[in-house]
């Protein structure tokens, strides 16, 4: 096993003259969960496709599991499991058939595949669903089936493109729990997401990107401490620009996004004191998170 699972060096990709990934570099160590965090269109999927050798970069060097990509992508893919952003299950096939067919794409024999199906179903909490058609499954179940399918070749590296987008909180938590158990088994994960919470919960390190460029990289908590390092009070229900003037004295920084004012302050009590007179406001005090980091670095919110 190589110590570096993925390395991208100065990778650039343009579509029709528009640069969508711009001199991007990162590496993923074996056994860690690395996140690519960014809003819609930031280039997350394009990067994962390049890592898989499904899209060649215009410039730059990519190495995955020791193999140069795309030249020897097939070699790398033998040790990779993928959950793509969009559902590509065979809708008319049963859960079992979906797994059977996919195992064959890895040159596994029917006997080999049938030997691993029970443990995959158990892992994905789909034990009772083996003979249900994929089209009949709920969104969360389909996503878990995709995850089970990605594990059929017992990969050491998993590439998950927005694994929980579109799922309800319960289904999302179940996926997160399953991913943590995979990390516990020593798997390496490259995860893309636009959920701050997901990134914070799962990623050892992550990289925040916007319009194909890296704007921050590090451990989630370190990024939050570095970039914010104080309490946040969200104020809504008033004119944010008038409020801003009121609080200038007691806040380190103030950001306005839409109707909401984000007040960053190490003396939150003073902020509350200032606003006490104004009745219609809604205040929410909370510790800082990655959302604040993104707002700070780009001046805008990352919408779910």
């Amino acid at each position, binding site marked *: 096993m190589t110590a570096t699972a993925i390395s991208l060096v100065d990778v650039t990709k343009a579509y029709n003259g528009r640069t969508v990934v711009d001199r991007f570099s990162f590496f993923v160590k074996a056994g860690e969960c690395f996140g690519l965090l960014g809003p819609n269109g930031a280039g997350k999927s394009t990067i994962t496709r390049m890592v898989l050798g499904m899209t060649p970069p215009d410039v730059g060097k990519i190495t995955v599991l020791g193999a140069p990509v795309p030249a020897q992508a097939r070699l790398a893919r033998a040790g990779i499991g993928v959950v*793509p952003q969009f559902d590509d299950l*065979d809708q008319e096939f049963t859960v079992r058939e979906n797994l059977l067919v996919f195992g064959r794409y890895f040159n596994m024999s029917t006997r080999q595949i049938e030997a691993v199906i029970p443990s995959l179903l158990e892992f994905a909490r789909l034990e009772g669903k083996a003979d249900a058609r994929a089209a009949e499954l709920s969104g969360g179940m389909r996503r878990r089936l995709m995850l089970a399918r990605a594990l059929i070749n017992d990969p050491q590296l998993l590439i998950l493109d927005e694994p929980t987008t579109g799922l309800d909180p319960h289904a999302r938590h179940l996926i997160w729990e399953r991913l943590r158990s995979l990390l516990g088994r020593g798997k390496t994960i490259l995860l893309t997401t636009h959920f701050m919470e997901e990134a914070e919960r799962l990623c050892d390190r992550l990289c925040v990107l916007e319009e194909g460029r890296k704007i921050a990289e590090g451990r989630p908590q370190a990024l939050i401490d570095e970039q914010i390092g104080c309490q946040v009070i969200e104020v809504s229900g008033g004119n944010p620009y008038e409020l801003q003037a009121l609080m200038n004295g007691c806040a380190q920084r103030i950001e306005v996004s839409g109707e909401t004012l984000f007040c960053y302050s190490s003396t939150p009590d003073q902020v509350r004191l200032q606003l006490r007179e104004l009745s219609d406001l809604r205040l929410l005090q909370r510790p800082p998170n990655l959302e604040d980091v993104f707002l700070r670095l780009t001046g805008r919110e990352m919408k779910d």
Partner: protein
Amino acid sequence: MWESYVAVLPANWLNWTAVWRRNYIAWKKAALVSILGSLGDPMIYLFGLGTGLSVMVGRVEGMSYIAFLATGMVATSAMTASTFETIYAAFARMRDQRSWQAILYTQLTLGDIVIGELVWAATKALLAGTAIATVAAILGYAVWSSILYVVPVIALTGIAFASLAMIVAAIAPNYEYFIFYQTLILTPMLFLSGAVFPVTQLPANVQQVVAFLPLAHSIDLVRPAMFGRPVADVMFHLGVLVLFGVMPFFISTALLRRRLMS
């Protein structure tokens, strides 16, 4: 550029079977409907057109018109079965169902997928063509033993037309596009290749075009064989069909790479 093209060519000789087996599982679920569908059309042609026209036409090239038509239909049904499988079903798997995308995450290459789809389409051609050949034999329009010779020709015809259709599928933006292929290429080919009337009825200069039509070569192999007559230029006709199977494969794979992997 060249290196990345080589990377999408078939990884080995057997990878394609995984794609074929996937399609077989899907087909099995609706096999009866599918068989009736692929047989119905040529049978209706055969009995509707054949019985009606036989009365007026009399004998053609020393055989009854319905027998003449039946032998043409064997090749033609192979053509349509594999073409439709490719431009509708394989296209849907490639574009709408994202099945190909999913396969590209695995140990199969794009070339493996294309071959799997071509062989699958040829399998459906084989079913349709063989069924009609069998009906023709039952009705006494063909020699039973000829079916043995005809089967590989039907399969090869299926591969050639699937391979051509794959180019169309690779560049088609949507399903409407396929109408052009059917009306501008396939239907004229049906009439120019001697399926419904002898090529000798065509003007001399048109007859020269016929030499470039794969369906004509297929019919030249199938028809005499089914009547138990000696087949002329076997190697030449087979060679042309092989060429039509192989050359488009490399073109469609390159086009599909540009479409799916850019």
